[in-house]
């Protein structure tokens, strides 16, 4: 970005002691850190999109199409690692969380600004390590993003370095979580009681607990893979008395809760956007706030549903299946409350709202397919097929991905003081929505019909549906390109965006646009809830 545009925008863009790049990468201002996360996260998202596009292209016809089998394995591994660890986990909490959370609480910054900067550095370093691992050593890892042993312990590709990179990223995630929890406990403005905290921040609170409590387990698990490779400890090696299924347990003890690190912030974004664009207070504020905590808690006990087919005891399967169904309850509560909020509201269908609405639909489809997977009987049929791939794309991309773009259209104009054009945003959204469903719904059907995941080749009878899915990926990518380009252009050159055009009642809408470095000229005193539009004295 050119310095001039940034200068013209004023607020925290201009106000700085240092200048140039140093004023960013050494800044402890939560807004600058949020912006840096945003740029990184978005770049990695685009990298991931390109890789995904190539995977789908390879699958357009049976047999070798554009890459070799080994490259294909590397492609889906790197795609998974980039999307999961570099995009979707830090995506909303680290970027929008940093941008918005302190302001929503009425604070001038997070509790530990320097730790916050350290988190960003760790993120950047971890990302670089992951990227370096692709081009050095024995080449890009080919294990799948789950790094399952024994293959990950044996393959000659550069697994150790990639895994170490992910370890560093985990550290970054833990520090962000600690920072947010402390900030929410200690830095709320006078009057900001727990039931006046905006739901986005509430969701980040629940997320932060999951980050803090689950990430250490993946950290140790990944260290174990590295030691397994370097020292040959044999802890997961059946020949040496170890047990590979223990790896799966430890991996999913983290990674199932991690899916809530991915989705909860997205739900928070939606909970903030729906009431604003329906001009109605949110229905069931407390239910939504507490269901975030319920999801975080219940979601920590269901990891075993990834392992029904790996030889657990029948009792284990039964228990995990039962627990899995319980998680669906708080998720359904949220969906119910969002829909009720819109009931009889005066809904304005602007870009943020469109993305929010599609979130509800896509997440519901994803959640329902999750129930099919959660029931052991049906899961055994579709486990490790394209159905699973479809399922988690619906929740992660249809959910979190769309929420990410909802957040971008909703908040970024506030931080830039300029806005994107509405028409291209809507066209982009339509393409994304259509392409998404064409691609992933078809993949779920393919999975039902028995097409396995992570296979380079497939039987000829799957060709037709694969062509459909690949065409869907083209439409989707076209939509993403339009949306990103429109945001990019609009935020630097678009119409000025001032005041409170959306009419939000949370604190970030009560301060100058773009926000000044200190956020508040005068420390706010909170006198009303985050969705009481009338009492807020906001036009």
């Amino acid at each position, binding site marked *: 970005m050119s310095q001039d545009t940034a200068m013209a925008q004023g607020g925290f863009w201009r106000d700085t002691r240092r200048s140039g790049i140093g004023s960013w990468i050494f800044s402890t201002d939560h807004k600058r850190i949020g912006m840096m996360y945003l740029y990184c996260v978005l770049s990695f998202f685009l990298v991931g999109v390109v890789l995904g596009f190539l995977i789908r292209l390879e699958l357009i016809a049976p047999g070798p199409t554009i890459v070799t089998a080994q490259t294909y394995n590397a492609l889906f591994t790197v795609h998974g690692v980039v999307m999961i660890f570099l995009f979707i986990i830090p995506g909303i909490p680290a970027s929008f969380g940093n941008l918005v959370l302190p302001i929503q609480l*009425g*604070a*001038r*910054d997070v*509790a*530990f600004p320097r*730790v916050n900067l350290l988190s960003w550095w760790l993120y950047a370093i971890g990302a670089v390590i992951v990227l370096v691992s692709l081009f050095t050593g024995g080449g890009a890892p080919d294990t799948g993003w789950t790094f399952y042993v024994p293959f990950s312990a044996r393959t000659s590709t550069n697994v150790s370095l990639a895994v170490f990179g992910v370890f560093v990223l985990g550290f970054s995630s*833990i520090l962000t*979580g*600690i*920072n947010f*929890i*402390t900030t929410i*406990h*200690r*830095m*709320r*403005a*006078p009057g900001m009681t727990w039931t006046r905290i905006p739901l986005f921040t509430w969701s980040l609170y629940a997320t932060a607990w999951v980050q*803090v*409590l689950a*990430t*250490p*387990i993946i*950290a*140790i*698990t990944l*260290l*174990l893979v590295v*030691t397994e490779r370097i*020292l*040959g*400890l*044999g*802890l997961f090696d059946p*020949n*040496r*008395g*170890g*047990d590979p299924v*223990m790896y799966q347990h*430890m991996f999913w003890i983290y990674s199932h809760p991690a899916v809530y690190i991915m989705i909860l912030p997205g739900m928070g974004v939606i909970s903030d956007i729906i009431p604003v664009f329906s001009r109605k207070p949110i229905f069931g504020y407390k239910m939504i706030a507490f269901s975030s905590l319920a999801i975080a808690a219940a979601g920590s006990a269901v990891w075993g549903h990834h392992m029904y087919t790996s030889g657990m005891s029948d009792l284990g399967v039964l228990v995990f299946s039962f627990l899995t169904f319980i998680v669906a309850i708080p998720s359904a509560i949220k969906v119910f409350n969002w829909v009720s909020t819109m009931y009889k509201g005066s809904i304005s269908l602007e870009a943020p709202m469109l993305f929010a609405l599609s979130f509800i639909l896509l997440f519901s489809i994803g959640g329902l397919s999750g129930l099919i997977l959660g029931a052991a009987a049906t899961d055994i049929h579709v486990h490790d097929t394209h159905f699973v791939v479809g399922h988690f794309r619906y929740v992660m991309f249809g959910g979190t991905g769309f929420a990410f773009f909802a957040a971008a259209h909703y908040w970024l104009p506030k931080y830039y003081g300029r806005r994107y054009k509405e028409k291209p945003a809507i066209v982009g959204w339509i393409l994304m929505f259509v392409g998404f469903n064409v691609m992933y719904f078809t993949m779920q059907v393919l999975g039902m019909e028995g097409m396995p995941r992570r296979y380079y080749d497939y039987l000829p009878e799957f060709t037709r549906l694969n062509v459909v899915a690949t065409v869907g990926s083209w439409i989707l990518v076209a939509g993403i390109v339009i949306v990103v380009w429109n945001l990019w252009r609009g935020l630097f050159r678009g119409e000025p965006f001032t005041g409170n055009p959306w009419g939000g009642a949370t604190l970030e809408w009560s301060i100058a646009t773009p926000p000044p470095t200190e956020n508040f000229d005068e*420390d706010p005193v909170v006198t009303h809830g985050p969705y009481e539009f009338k009492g807020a004295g906001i036009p």
Partner: protein
Amino acid sequence: MSHAEKDSFGAKLGMWLFLFTEMLLFGGVFILYSVYLTRYPKEFGLGGHQLDLVFGATNTVVLLTSSLFAAMSVTAIKRGAKQLTLGLLSGTIGCALIFLFIKYLEWSAKFHHGIYPNSPKLIAGPPGESIFFSLYYLTTGLHGIHVIIGGILMTWTAVMVQKGMLNSADNVTLENVTLYWHLVDLVWIFIFPLYYLIL
């Protein structure tokens, strides 16, 4: 409470959360330990007997002493006794060094007997035994790294105390580093019985 003045309660809250994550990190190893213990109780017992109880017990005493010094240094700095604080901190750091030295002796003795990860002797032995020693090296190694990090942090705080940047009014950093040190101690209190005293 929003900002301006330093929030030492907040700082301690953050530290406690961090210590939690450290416990969970070790928790992962302890989960593995408990699973494999139920699978190979006999081999774990035999493995435990091969560890040197004297080294282990001495190190337990050394670490407990260091923790005591660290705790006293917090009291000392609150009273404004700078020299005493520095002395106690040096005591802690000294103990850390002794601990690492003893660990070094212990490990090299084991290596000498052909007991190290992936060694021919362990590969030839029963699987449970190699698992036991793998876990032993893993846990004590990870713990050792924490001792080193703790020692570095202690040294850094000692320098800050020396320069007067930490004093009777502002000492939350020292308190937090001490908390960290207690964690290192605490983890060892688990390691010692699990590995040295088993059966």
